């Protein structure tokens, strides 16, 4: 098939060709970058959480009045929770993973290192069932013992409890490649605790942090009067247990209110809300753009068919077959889309470069431009098929008509 006559025929209607070519170019630029951002965000959202989030419930209780005894309340609450059928483990805690809120402190392997280090951990004050309640995997050492769990009734204190458990990332950040088990770890005030266990990485409170897996468990019961409990249930039973937990804890008739019992997924969704929102918006824009461009291609092709009716008829009259006509339009579209895609690739990289420097987004991966180009080429061919069929249906007799 001769390309030259197709090209010269194409350029006789320069405007239409330029218009559709520009549409394709712009669409590729936007779609490649948008798809890249979408995949990036989805990777972020799908990072392993490290905890058994689907089966965790979080309870928020607050005491009031002069008769409220926080430690007693916690002990009775934990006994009650652990006795509920379907509950695997329960712990009190000062904060909730992936909730956007919590405590953080800096630690080092020596007192001097701790005073100047930038390595800080997201802290969870947990008891002997802490590891079980979060469902994290213990890879070295042991969990806390009941005796190790301390309590300080004052909410303002700088205590550092005797035993800590570190995530893998925290372990490496403090001790490098050396084994951490059994070694002391120091806070900025020179106090120390012994590393009794190492767990698989879990996400801390702030999912957007650069080092979000640096987490430390300390063997304490968090002080009140506000208290949180992390309750792990048997798979699939957590939603059903919410009303039962509320009922059983309220029935203890203590001077406190149960503010809410929420599945952990509530916090996960909140943490990733802006990212999943970006994914939705970008998805809508991508789909709409592809649809509009496809319609543009169909529109141009139909217009071409109309304008060149006589010409097509003449070609048929001198011997072109239907499939020749169809092939003509398909090749013409292929050339047009290729031109648009080449220009679009340049736009895409330019746009991507600008996005990454102006808005601190990661650098565009060329694979997305390639994939987008292939998609648009296929789309173009599909879009032009129906008008091409219509063109092929033009009878040769048109060539001889003057009306």
């Amino acid at each position: 098939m001769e390309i030259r006559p197709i090209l010269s025929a194409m350029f006789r209607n320069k405007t239409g060709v330029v218009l559709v070519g520009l549409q394709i170019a712009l669409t590729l630029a936007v779609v490649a970058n948008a798809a890249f951002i979408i995949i990036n965000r989805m990777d972020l959202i799908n990072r392993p959480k490290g905890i058994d989030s689907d089966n965790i419930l979080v309870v928020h209780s607050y005491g009031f009045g002069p008769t409220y005894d926080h430690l007693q309340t916690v002990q009775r609450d934990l006994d009650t929770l652990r006795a509920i059928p379907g509950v695997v483990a329960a712990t009190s805690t000062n904060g909730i993973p992936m909730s956007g809120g919590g405590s953080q402190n800096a630690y080092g392997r020596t007192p001097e290192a701790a005073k100047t280090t930038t390595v800080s951990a997201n802290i969870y004050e947990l008891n002997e069932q802490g590891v079980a309640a979060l469902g994290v995997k213990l890879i070295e050492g042991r969990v806390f013992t009941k005796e190790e769990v301390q309590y300080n009734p004052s909410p303002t204190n700088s205590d550092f409890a005797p035993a800590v458990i570190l995530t893998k990332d925290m372990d490496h950040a403090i001790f490098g490649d050396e084994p951490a088990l059994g070694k002391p770890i120091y806070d900025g005030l020179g106090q120390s605790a012994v590393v009794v266990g190492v767990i698989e990485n879990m996400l801390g409170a702030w999912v957007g942090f650069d080092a979000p897996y640096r987490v430390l468990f300390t063997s304490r019961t968090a002080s009140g009067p506000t208290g949180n409990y992390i309750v792990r249930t048997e798979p699939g039973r957590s939603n059903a247990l919410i009303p039962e937990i509320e009922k059983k804890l309220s029935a203890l008739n203590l001077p406190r209110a149960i503010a809410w019992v929420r599945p952990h997924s509530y916090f996960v969704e909140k943490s990733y809300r802006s990212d999943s929102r970006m994914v939705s918006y970008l998805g809508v824009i991508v789909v709409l753009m592809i649809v509009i461009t496809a319609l543009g291609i169909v529109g141009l092709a139909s217009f071409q068919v109309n304008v060149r009716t006589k010409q097509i008829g003449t070609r048929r009259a001198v011997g072109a077959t239907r499939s020749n006509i169809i092939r003509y339009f398909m090749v013409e579209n292929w050339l047009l889309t290729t031109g648009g895609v080449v220009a679009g690739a340049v736009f895409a990289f330019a746009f991507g470069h600008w996005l990454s420097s102006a808005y601190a987004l990661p650098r565009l991966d060329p694979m997305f431009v390639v994939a987008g180009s292939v998609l648009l080429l296929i789309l173009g061919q599909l879009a032009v098929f129906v008008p091409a069929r219509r063109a092929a249906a033009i009878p040769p007799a048109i060539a001889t008509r003057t009306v």
Partner: protein
Amino acid sequence: MFTYHLRLAFKSLRRNPVLSALMIGAIALGVGVCSTTLTVYRLMSGNPIAHRNDVLYSVTVDNWDPARPWNEKRPDIAPMEIAYRDAMALGASKIPSRHVVMRKTTFVVDPSRTNGAKPFQVEARLATKDFFTMFDTPFLYGGGWDQAADDGAQNVVVLTRNTNQKTFGDVNSVGRTLQLDGRDYKVVGVLNEWNPSPKFYDLNNGAFDEPEELFVPLSVGAALELPPAGNVNCWRNEPLNSYTDLMNSDCVWHQFWVQLDNDEQVQSFRTLVDNYVRDQKALGRFPRPMNNHLYRPDEWLKHNRVVRNDNRVLVGLSFMFLAVCLLNMLGLLLAKFLGGAPLVGLRRALGASRSMIFRQHLVEVSVIGVAGGLLGVGLTVLGLLQIRTMYENYEGLTRVDFTMGVIAIAIALAAGIIAGLYPTWRVCRTQPASYLKTQ
């Protein structure tokens, strides 16, 4: 004449309904997407205290770690909050006409004596008395408290309308008492609906969260050692084993705003802050270089990066989408107008001037633009409603208002005319005779 043009325009659109629908649809989609993202962007970048923007200032000082800045990624900036001792010291100055030192805490509200409901926990704001006058909060009943209440750490409270309803019902509760954390507090005021969006006065825990549910004098917080409920950030390795330790520390956990009514006051206050920091340096505090700033509300919002990069990227992409829609419409218009060239040739032969043809086609393009704009407004409403259902706390951001509608239609009209100029010009250039020769 204009109605004649209009009639012809509608006739022309009806002649080719599919094409017209496509063109109107293309504009509607482009405009719908653009004005949705623009509306969200506009409301996100709004300044709810714009009418007092010239006199209010948020104060930051850099008492942070000599070894590293407050924010490694923005090493020039000072902490976003201020230490208790610095806020109280600077707040004692007589230079500002008003000032407020404040922070968050929580209370357990026990309305069992007032309406029998069960106790519930609320987020509360502890502030000095000028909070209400400085930030122009609307009162439904009563007002704020006075200096005596601040000085004496009196147990008084200002409720929001919502909290008033939850505790006393929809009545004027001023003068009555409410139990907070087991103590009686006298209600001195009830705020009317107030939801500044963004929450400019404290952006630390959610720029678009609702305001706190009740307000109590700051001094009560110190007297009763009420725990902090916002961000508390410390850098110094100092033991914090009592509330007094926290109050005297270099931990930042308060917000500090002043009202300075003229340039003189601004200059004097800046000097005062600088002198204070120098004095503190002599005592061994403030080891970092001087970095004291006053931010007006609009500057404060920008400084806190309330509008995220994601929002800007979305607005940019929407306009690129609009460009594609425009190109699309341009192509369709070109096809349509050139296809209607024979009719134009006939009209020219019958005496229509070029400018008349030009106007005719512009009117047709404008009709498409306005129709697309109206449909686009509908799509925008749908888009904003969808956003609102997906995410709570977005009520303020997705307000469907008149300005948005006007913007949408204006964009559509402009888009239509821009897209229509070239095809209109092309069709006016044609020679009528060529179309009259053959069919």
